[in-house]
């Protein structure tokens, strides 16, 4: 039960640039996954519309 550390960030940004890099990587990966998924679905949708035309 030691006294709790009171210090708050002093003249520092709340999020470090390292944390920002991590977050941006995660965002990029999520976006890339979404793009890959969309591409797979787009190919399938195109195939549908082609087959329904014939």
């Amino acid at each position, binding site marked *: 039960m030691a006294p709790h550390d009171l210090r708050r960030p002093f003249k520092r940004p709340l999020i470090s640039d390292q944390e920002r890099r991590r977050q941006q*990587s995660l965002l990029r990966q999520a976006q890339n996954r979404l793009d890959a998924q969309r591409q797979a679905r787009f190919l399938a949708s195109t195939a549908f519309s082609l087959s329904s035309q014939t």
Partner: protein
Amino acid sequence: VAGIELPHKQWPELIGSLLSNAHQLPAPTRQATLETLGYICEEVSPDVVEQDHVNKILTAVVQGMNSTEENNDVRLAAIQALYNALGFAQANFSNDMERDYIMRIVCEATLSPEIKIRRAAFECLVAISSTYYEKLAPYIQDIFAITAKAVKEDEEPVALQAIEFWSSICDEEIDILEEYGGEFSGDSDVPCSYFIKHALPFLVPMLLETLLKQEEDQDQDEGAWNIAMAGGTCLGLVARTVGDDIVPLVMPFIEENITKPDWRQREAATYAFGSILEGPSPEKLVPLVNMALSFMLNALTKDPNNHVKDTTAWTLGRMFEFLHGSALDTPIINQGNCQQIITVLLHSMKDVPNVAEKACGALYFLAQGYEDAGSASSPLTPFFQEIVQALLTVTHREDTGESRLRTAAYEALNEVVRCSNDDTAPMVAQLVTVIMMELHQTLENQKVSSDDRQNELQGLLCGCLQVIIQKLGSADPTKHHLMQYADQIMGLFLRVFASRSATAHEEAMLAIGALAYATGAEFAKYMQEFYRYLELGLQNFEDYQVCAITVGVVGDVSRALEEKILPYCDGIMTQLLKDLSSNQLHRSVKPPIFSCFGDIALAIGENFEKYLLYAMPMLQSAAELSAHTAGADDDMTEYTNTLRNGILEAYSGIFQGFKGSPKTQLLMPYAPHVLQFLDSLYLEKDMDDVVTKTAIGVLGDLADTLGGAAGPLIQQSVSSKDFLKECLSSDDHLIKESAEWAKLTLSRAISLPSY
């Protein structure tokens, strides 16, 4: 021992026997008893202690805290025990009489002659302010009086806790107003007591007083925390809580002190100004900032005191952070002052390390304000080369010592690169060679001796390369600038893995992920050498961040290589499955592992066949666990949704991967469970939007891949009817897009004959 046994109801008599000690005469026995009760409350979850025992513990504790208790050690142990028992006291804090009594005893303890007791009592008040904010109204005036007295007269450790009480109230009110702000027009609907707003005329002068109590050299001591720092931090929180109302209360203090001969007054005035720049509206602040800007630029160059310069540079950074950017109507930076701002900041980067660090920070936010400038020429473009050169010079300074200066310079450099535009792309490409040289040099130095600073530098350089790779790799016209160096960059990253620093590994791994994305299929040539580090990263349970990032990089590599990743998949899948089965690995890594299954499956298609037998049962049991969240707290619900999304992304990748293959029937046995999972998610009604989007997409993927074979099953599911209907009329365009996809594939699957 109690922490282990009590939750299993294996030591029911413990608390009773401890409580019988509380009345023992020898003070050391009472002290030890209260300490033990405190430790138990700290360790054990409130739901395993019966209310009757809680009442008795609190009675014993409050008796021990009473001013009639003559032994200070016993009284201190009692207060510390109360601190730990607060989470147990929900029922007692709901009872007016009991709460009044506890609060009276705590407030009395803040007046004890013993400093340790006063500090612990304020610590309790801080904890009460966050745990029982909604119960504080009857006591807040008395608490203001005792905190004001402590801030003014008491010793530092006590005064710091007294300030912390108000910071903690600000935290609570900021959270409440953020959650309810805008949604309710009538104040009575918002569970905010507006303590800060009401206390403002007394609170602000009290905090402004503290700003004048700076310590000599406080800016050079990384671990420093004193009354002036706590007071300024609290003032910043007050500004965020009340917005515009703080401005007229602080401005007279600034005007009175900013030109005084005593550095303490000038610094306090500047710190006060910097502290209130977040919260009040731009309409209120921009005119003030326009008036102050040239004064601040002058002070940063000419003030004789380093503290004043430090705070001035920090305040400039805050001006740029909150009042500069495309979202603001009135720019505070224009053609007239842009050059002067840059000249002053670059000049300050040659100042003492703490001032130079804040100047780098200011430049970071100056660049960030132009992030959305797009392809339009940024006002920083003409100065790009000069800025980059100045930052690189800072990174080479030999007087950075233990300060954050070097890190701040690389962070600013990263932001300048992130916010650069096509005009400066060739200069960013030149920077690649410079940073590569630096990284090469640290790797060479490491052969002679390795230390933490060297590892830290490697991390910073890999971070910088990651930002550059991401910047240049994001568009075809700039990508070719990067590709010519890809082999050399990768070679350097692989050498970084020889160091023992988790941070450097993490940064190198992140950068490699970005490089894999930029290089695409050509990344295959690095795989043989890279694979062992990939595997080591996946095995790094201890530094779970490294493991999590490596999992993400497996996804990047899968998308980049597609079927060329196949030779490495046995090893990767074995490790991922081991990670999932491990109790040691941090739970946050597990959802991305499931998503990664989907990435791999999408990349290798029907070749995923041999992993189905292992991956599907894992997905199935995780799905069952995650389907219901009843009784979970917010953190658990958020985690559950992340887990669900990972599981669904795995299913999506697997179904899409098998699409068009003669082996699709291998997935048929899993279809009932997947549909059941989607149904249970829908019926549970607690999915977030991301899960909803992924879930309805999975329904589409399943129908697309299995076609008519799954038609009857799909028709039986609630998801194919009510869930789909709801998603089709969603306002969220991603949910709607996935739902349109599901509608298309479902119509086809249902209309086709089943075999």
